[in-house]
Structures are given as structure tokens and as C-alpha cells.
């Protein structure tokens, strides 16, 4: 991953693209983790 960048534009485009991809993967990961975490919780009905 040793990239050579010739301008700040190149650098920002590369790092932000990668970060947004990671964020896109991170959000469903958080959701999946929450479902795993609460998978065995008893359902509490308040109605």
C-alpha cells in the first residue's frame, strides 16, 4: 500500500475513497454486531 501521490488532490481522493468504503462496511458491521449482541435477549413488550 506504499502509494506515491503527486498532488494533495490525489492523496485526498485515495484516502477518502478508502475511508468511505470502510465506513460503508462498518455500518452494517455495527448492525450485525448489535443483532449478535441482543440475539438472546428476552423480548420485552411494553404495550
Amino acid at each position, binding site marked *: 500500500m506504499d502509494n506515491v501521490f503527486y498532488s494533495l488532490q490525489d492523496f485526498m481522493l485515495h*484516502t477518502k475513497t478508502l475511508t468511505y468504503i*470502510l465506513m460503508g462496511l462498518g455500518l452494517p458491521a455495527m448492525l450485525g454486531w448489535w443483532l*449478535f449482541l441482543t440475539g438472546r435477549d428476552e423480548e420485552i413488550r411494553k404495550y
Partner: protein
Amino acid sequence: MNATTDRKKTALLELLRTPGNILTAFILALGLCITVLRFTKGLAGVTNLNDNYPWGIWISFDLLCGVALAAGGYAATTACHLFGLKDFRTSVRPAVTSAFLGYAFVVLALHYDVGQPWRLVYPIFLSQGTSSVLFEVGLCVFIYLSVLALEWSIAVFERLGWKKARARIVRLTIPLTVLGVILSTMHQSSLGALYLIAPSKMHPLWYSPFIPVFFFVSSIFAGMSMVIFEGSLAHRFLRGQMDEEHIRRGDAVVFGFGKAASITMLGYLLIRLYGVALDDNWRFLPTGYGLWFIAELAGFVALPSFLYALGVREKNTRRIRFAALLTIAGIVLNRFNVSLVAFNWQLAPEEKYFPHWMEIAVSAFIVTLIITAYRLICAYMPILRDDPDFETH
């Protein structure tokens, strides 16, 4: 009468002769001797601090770890008073007590570290450096310690039987909790922001423009883990001081904070990765520092987060308590990495700082003081039990 008094004295002496108490007495005596040396010989007499490392273990451990681990105060009060999770009510007073003691002893420890400790009040009252991050930290710690003292005073007033004074403070519960959250958000993050001034001195894997966010988010699960850890210690060693409700609700606190810590730690893990991605620091990962960075994140963030999740799913309190211990170790490791290991990483090994044994002894002295004070407070005040003369709030 004399025989009874003698028996009581003998029983008290026997009680004080336990190995734990003897060790406590030794550490306190040693700490007092080093205190005399520190204030007569100066910093050079007891520390290995130098121009490359003006901040050593007293900042890394006593201040950075102390403040992060005292975050249980705002975590518990927010959960109970702002989010209305009344299952956590029994954890509030112990958490506020340990937070109050934690911050009070952070201020005490600063007296050892500051070259001219009598000037510690200058930034607040005499010469406000409003453009300095350190001023903001000092001001927030000063105000938050006052807020914690007020929150904690409810237990003091119950002990003294001062009903009117207690009622006045109880009425302020919500404003004090809100103030506590705001101040904690500010100074927990600002402790990280202190390192923004040194991008060239810090290893790129630990330096990030987002380091204040890392410090704040990590303080959230550090506080929750401390509440779980302290609760398990109290259940084991101070069970005699606890009432039925505190014992019964202990597991609900462990599962609730375990769940919250697990998801928060996953979020923290992700933002640390985003930090690496935004600065394009992937090339440092296959190096020695990189492996250490991976060890910190995998072993002390990802693993305890997973153990918390497993423990919550399987209703296994032992696993959650182990995860809490691992998380606390991870917070200590992170603060040491930021302030010592990754700091001045380009210096030659012989120029690196290693604390003098007296610096370590002073830190042990401070921790022992906190534990001793906590035990005394729990013995004499309604911290782990409700006072039957007062309504719960």
C-alpha cells in the same frame, strides 16, 4: 470492662495484621518518604524526566489513565438519570465515589508533577491562557471535581442526617448530570488534543487529527468497564457493606454495561481504522510499531468487545468481568502508547525514557491512597447500601 476493651483492641490489631493491610502500610510509608524527597530535592531527585520527556509516568498513568478510568461517574449517572435506566441506580453512588476520588487524587498527583505546585491554581484564578488546550483541561477538571463533590455530598448528608441539604442537592441531580457529561466530553477529548501539538514527535499510527475523538470514545467504555470491575471487587471484598438490593441488582449492571461497552468498543475499533486510512498509514503496519499497534487493537479492543458480547449472550458474568479487566488494561496500554511508547519514537533507544523506581512508587502510593479512602468511605457511608431513613432517588 477492661477485659472487653482489651479484647476489642486485640481483635482490631489482628484485623490490621492481614497481608493486604501490611502491604498497604508499607506502600503508604514508602510513598510518604518519597514525597519528602520530591519536595526537598525537586523533580531531578526522584524522576528520570528530561528535556525530551518533560511528561513521564505521572502524566501517563496518574493523569491520562486516572481520568479515563474515572469516567464511570458520568457513564453511570447518564445511564440512570438521563436515559432513565433505573436498573443501574445501585451503580451510581459507587461510580460517583470512585470518580470523585479518582479526580481528587489526579489533582494531588499533579502536585508531584508540576515544578512549582503552589502555582497550580494560577491558570484558574490568576492567569487564564484561554488559547491553551491545557487551560481547558485544567478548567474542566476543576469544575467537574466540584460537580462530583456535589453529587457525592448526597451520601455525606445522609451520613450526617442533614435532610434539607440533601434534598437541595437531590433537586439538582439532572443539571449536575448534564454538566458532568458536558465537562467530561470536553476534557476527556482535550487530554487527547494535548498531543495534537506534537505530530512530528508521535508515531503516525498513534497520531491522528482525530485523537481527541479517540480519547473521548475510549473513555466511555473505560468508565463502563471500571463500573463492572469495581462492582465485582465490591461483591467480593465489601459484601458485608452491601444491602440486599445492591447484591441482587449486581448482575443487571454487569449485563447492561457489558452490552453498551461491547458496541461502543466496536465503534472505537472502526474509527481507529478510519484514522489509519485517512492518513494512509497502512505502510507502518508490517513494522515493529505496527505489530504493537495491531496487538493493542486486536488484543485489548476487539477481543474484550467480543468477550463482552459472548458474556452478554450467554449471561456469563465471569466472562464479562474478565473482559472488563482486559479493557482496563487496554486503556492503560493505549494511554502509555500515546504518551510514552509512540512519543519520541525516532529517538535512539539510549535516549528513551524509563521511569525511576521512585516515580513508580509514587504512582503506587496514589493508587493505594484511593483504594484505602474508598474502603473507608464504604465502611462509614451509605455507598453500597441505601440509607433506610431516606427515599431513593
